[in-house]
């Protein structure tokens, strides 16, 4: 799925010095700069994800590359997160120009995408594999968190947070991160599965 991000990524790679400048721009303390970098990256990836980007992580990498290049060229950036956000929006809009990155509404999709009778089974198998790979504590937490639905869900989560001795927000955040990790794992596995020749696709592992 070639996009603008990939092309630029190949064209130019940030140097170690450039990346150090980028981090220093976030915070003079290296440890705090690392934390801020991760936090900024996560936020930008989610923004582009919410905007419907196909490969938000790659677009954010491209964003960081462009900003780092600016820094290496000697440009002074006062508010790096805001600057990066602006560049990310631009990179995203540019990526939409590529035909492969066009959004397709579900109604249109149903006409072009053939049904996947085995898709759900493969996905389920990937999911089970990824769940098994999670640390036991995280696995139990995510299953327990989503165990209830309907009107019982909220009470159940409040009770769960009380039982764990953490605020509800912290529990929600923890569950979100595990869910995200699980989703990434499933996507990776599905990708691996689809790259295999058809005769090799089963069993999954």
């Amino acid at each position: 799925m070639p996009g603008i991000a990939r092309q630029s990524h190949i064209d130019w790679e940030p140097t170690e010095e450039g990346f150090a400048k980028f981090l220093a721009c976030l915070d003079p303390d290296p440890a705090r700069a690392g934390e801020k970098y991760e936090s900024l990256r996560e936020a930008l990836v989610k923004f582009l994800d919410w905007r419907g980007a196909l490969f938000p992580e790659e677009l954010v990498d491209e964003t960081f590359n462009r900003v780092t290049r600016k820094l290496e060229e000697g440009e002074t950036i006062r508010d790096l997160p805001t600057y990066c956000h602006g560049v990310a929006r631009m990179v995203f809009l540019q990526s939409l120009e590529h035909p492969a990155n066009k959004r397709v509404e579900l109604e249109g999709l149903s006409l072009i995408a053939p049904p996947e009778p085995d898709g759900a089974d493969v996905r389920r198998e990937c999911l089970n594999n990824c769940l098994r790979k999670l640390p036991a504590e995280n696995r139990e937490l995510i299953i327990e968190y989503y165990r209830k639905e309907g009107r019982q869900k909220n009470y159940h989560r409040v009770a769960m947070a009380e039982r764990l001795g953490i605020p509800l927000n912290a529990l929600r955040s923890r569950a979100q991160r595990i869910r995200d990790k699980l989703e990434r794992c499933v996507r990776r596995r599905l990708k691996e599965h689809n790259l295999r020749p058809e005769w090799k696709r089963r069993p999954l592992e």
Partner: protein
Amino acid sequence: MISRKTRVMKITQNENLIRRYLLGELAEADQAAFEQELLIDRSKFEQVWAVENELVDSYVRGEMSRADRKRFESHYLASPLHRERVAIAESFLTDIAQAVGERGELRENEPVVHWRRRFPLRSPRPVFGVVLVMALLLTFSLGWSYIERTRLTGQIAKVQKEAQTEHAILRQRERELASRNQEIEKEIADVSQRNEQLKAELEQLRRREATLSKVLSYLLAPASVRSQKGPPQSTIHLSAGKARLLMELYNSDYTSYQVIIQTVEGREILRRRTGKVRFGKDRWFATLPVNAGDLTKGDYILILFGQTADGSSEEIDRYFFRVS
């Protein structure tokens, strides 16, 4: 101070904004401004993420209203990444529901229908019209009840949090009052003690006053008894306020008596008529009450005169005394 109602309204508005953002209903400028806010406020970012997951879950579980579902499908599901997310969520939630079902727990909602199968299903046959309308009504009521429930749960959580805060404040006040109570009790004890002291002092003063108000009697010995010149035989303490001087009468035939007090230098201080009193069986005394103001400190001579029946006056005796 923001009222609870205002806070609830703010939360609802905030959640509406998040939903509009996720469903692509914000203009580019608003979207960018909203993301700027999320960059600064990490908790808000987490909240958006949570709302996204809630949207996905409610879609998968068929809990979304018709309008929301339509918006969700036309915008959110337009992204392949999101479609994959929904599919993964569906697998995950179905697995969990099955696992729960195997454990014998009851599910509240109907089984999840695969969104890929559900979406293109737009049956032209009118025979299903009524069923479809009923299903839509059911979906709408489910969606509405879900929104209401979410709102009420939020309110309950807020109220519980406020109650906890109030409880903590009340406990703090209770502790402060207990402490203040102890202080007041101590003050009361101190005041009581002081009261007792004052009472004791007052009692002492009363006793002293009573003592002072007693009239002491001094028996004066006649000067003739003195063998030589020397200090006066009687010393009278007039600091007590009052005193009574007694002069024994060996001849009580006089009709009345008169007393003259003069200093040793001969200056007359006091002249007064007086009577006689009997002590015991047959002892008579002439008496003279004196006040503190009558005499100052010093030595005095008291001359006692008797009045005879013919009206003449005779000196009976002289007495020396000292006032201190």
